[in-house]
């Protein structure tokens, strides 16, 4: 069997990679995708603990995280579309003024 801490180390690595991607990419859609990567890393940790503690609560929380991620992606992408329409650019460094 695979020990639990292997899954947790993988989850930590994925989370760290998500943070690095969030900080170093300039395209706002890629930044959003790195947020999804971080959420997935957290999901992996949830399921690993659910298996270790032999309870299904972790998997229920994974379902909730997926639902919240879906809602957040929908609204976030709507905001991205509005920004892209107004500034004609998807570069976050261009969105640095409070007024257009």
């Amino acid at each position, binding site marked *: 069997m*695979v*020990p*639990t*801490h*292997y*899954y*947790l*180390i*993988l989850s*930590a*690595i*994925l*989370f*760290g*990679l*998500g*943070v*690095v*991607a969030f900080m*170093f*990419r*300039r*395209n706002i*859609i*890629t930044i*959003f*995708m*790195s947020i*999804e*990567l971080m959420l*997935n890393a957290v*999901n*992996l940790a949830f*399921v690993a*603990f659910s*298996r*270790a503690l*032999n309870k*299904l*609560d972790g*998997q*229920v929380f994974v*379902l*909730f995280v*997926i639902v*919240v*991620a*879906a*809602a*957040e*992606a*929908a*609204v976030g*992408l*709507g905001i*991205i*579309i509005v920004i892209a329409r107004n500034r004609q650019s*998807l*570069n976050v*460094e261009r969105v640095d003024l409070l007024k257009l």
Partner: protein
Amino acid sequence: MNAPLIIFFVLAAMCVLGAISLILQRHPIHSALSLIVVMVALAGLYLLMGAEFVAAVQIIVYGGAIMVLFVFVIMLLNAGVEERTNLSKLAGFAGIPLGVALMGFLAAAVARSQDMVQVATQTGTAAPTKALANLLFQDFVYPFELTSFLILIAILGAIVLAQRENA
């Protein structure tokens, strides 16, 4: 070196390579494809852990709906290759090692705790979906109904945001 361990390492390698590819690709659509690979590999890991329903939901919802939304937006906004801007290189030189250090600290903290969390004996997975449904609709029914409100708010928000201004 038994079969589950080999499968774990293959899937974990797919996850990590997909995440690194997400960081390094220049075009957002390639980043999106890498993220889809990460999600499918994660679904494989959930299957390896015995969480079948969660694996299926991950592919259907995350891989088949959320990422399709991302791909649509990339196509509609005609997102191109990222341009290079002249911001400080120092941030790059200092930041990447710090990011790696963050990952290292997290991973080391986790690895040091390996005695505390052991794999429990084989769970009674006769009908895990049924048990999951029981849990979801009995103990967690209140958050479940709240998520339906959340989705409704998200739908309304997305519709309002994506409308064209009638100026």
